[in-house]
């Protein structure tokens, strides 16, 4: 008996999903959600530092993006437009809920335990757990200005190109690059006081 494999259909483009969504097709909304929910969540989590607020920001961002599709004029991709909305929503949540206070409380345990001694990332004897390192990075991110933080997170976490970050933030590519440099410099300086980087 011959086995016939069905041809693999290419995934529908964002544009076609948006057109179907405009016609009221619920499956298109679900597909867009599945496609970008994790990326949006990671960006929001990096900007906010905790899961609950990040989930709220993602939900808010998706709702705003999907109910204001008239504002999306197709000059950028849906992905970059969504990330713009989500990152703005995340920063709004952060302002409302006092991100820095939350972070400083959650990461104080690391400082207390390690007595501010520099730690080597690659030293298993030290045993800096991944979760602790992530919290330390969250705390370092909180020391950045909102503009630097958003620029760095969109580039490092969402892996957007300089041009895409510039589109999301409405700034020049040169500004993206200089913000990246100073953000990295500040993060490295912060971490270098606490771990061997």
């Amino acid at each position: 008996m011959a086995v016939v494999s069905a041809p693999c259909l290419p995934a529908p483009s964002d544009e076609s999903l948006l057109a179907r969504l405009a016609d009221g097709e619920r499956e298109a909304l679900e597909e867009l959600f599945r496609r970008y929910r994790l990326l949006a969540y990671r960006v929001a989590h990096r900007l906010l530092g905790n899961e609950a607020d990040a989930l709220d920001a993602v939900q808010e961002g998706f709702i705003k993006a999907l109910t204001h599709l008239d504002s999306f004029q197709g000059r950028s991709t849906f992905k970059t437009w969504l990330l713009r909305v989500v990152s703005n929503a995340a920063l709004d949540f952060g302002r409302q809920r006092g991100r820095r206070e939350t972070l400083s409380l959650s990461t104080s345990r690391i400082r207390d335990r390690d007595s501010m001694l520099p730690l080597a990332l690659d030293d298993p004897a030290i045993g800096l757990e991944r979760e602790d390192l992530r919290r330390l990075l969250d705390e370092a991110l909180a020391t950045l200005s909102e503009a630097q933080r958003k620029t760095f997170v969109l580039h490092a976490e969402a892996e957007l190109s300089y041009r895409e970050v510039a589109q999301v933030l409405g700034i020049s590519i040169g500004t993206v690059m200089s913000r990246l440099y100073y953000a990295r410099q500040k993060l490295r300086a912060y971490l270098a006081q606490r771990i061997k980087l």
Partner: protein
Amino acid sequence: MRQSRPADMGTPRPEELAAYLDGELSPARQESIATWLRHHPEAAAEIEGQRRLAGVWPTTTPAEPADANWASMLVRIESAVDRFRSARGRNRRRIQLGITGLAAGLLLVLLTPKEPGPAEAPSAGEPLAVVSPDDVEIVSLHAADRATLVVGAAPVMGPLVLASSNDVELEGVDPADDGMIPSIHMDERTIIPMSVAPLDPPPAGLPEPRP
């Protein structure tokens, strides 16, 4: 004239250092910055630290939320989108109704004949002069209609006496062919004055003329 020192030539700007770290520069510029960094150990240490930061970053990616979180979030998003669409549909219908009403009103105004402006309109109670009394000649009028006259004057305001009883002596009245001359029964002692255009009821005691 100031000249740059050789060691400062090609000093990269911060944005170039960011692009150098990301490998976004042209090969030539990438190489020139690498050369510059070999002569600037502090800057090289900074770039190396940033490179290690970039290496640490992916190891701290936040864990994905549970499927239940995604499922409940999707339900809330769909619900919000549905509510938004319903509200927008209602608003659109309201706007359409408003525009339709406005257009109908405008059309009504345009199609309605113009009335005289306030300055030309007569004041309340003032009769509207269509014609002057001189333009109308009333030949005959029933007495009951006199009050409805808006212009002109009744031809006879009261009983018109053409002759007194002493002026006329009737020898007899015969009905005319058209029947318009009243048939009055006369005797030798009864003399009834003849009148025309009886706008008012005849004096008491006189018989009603027969049609």
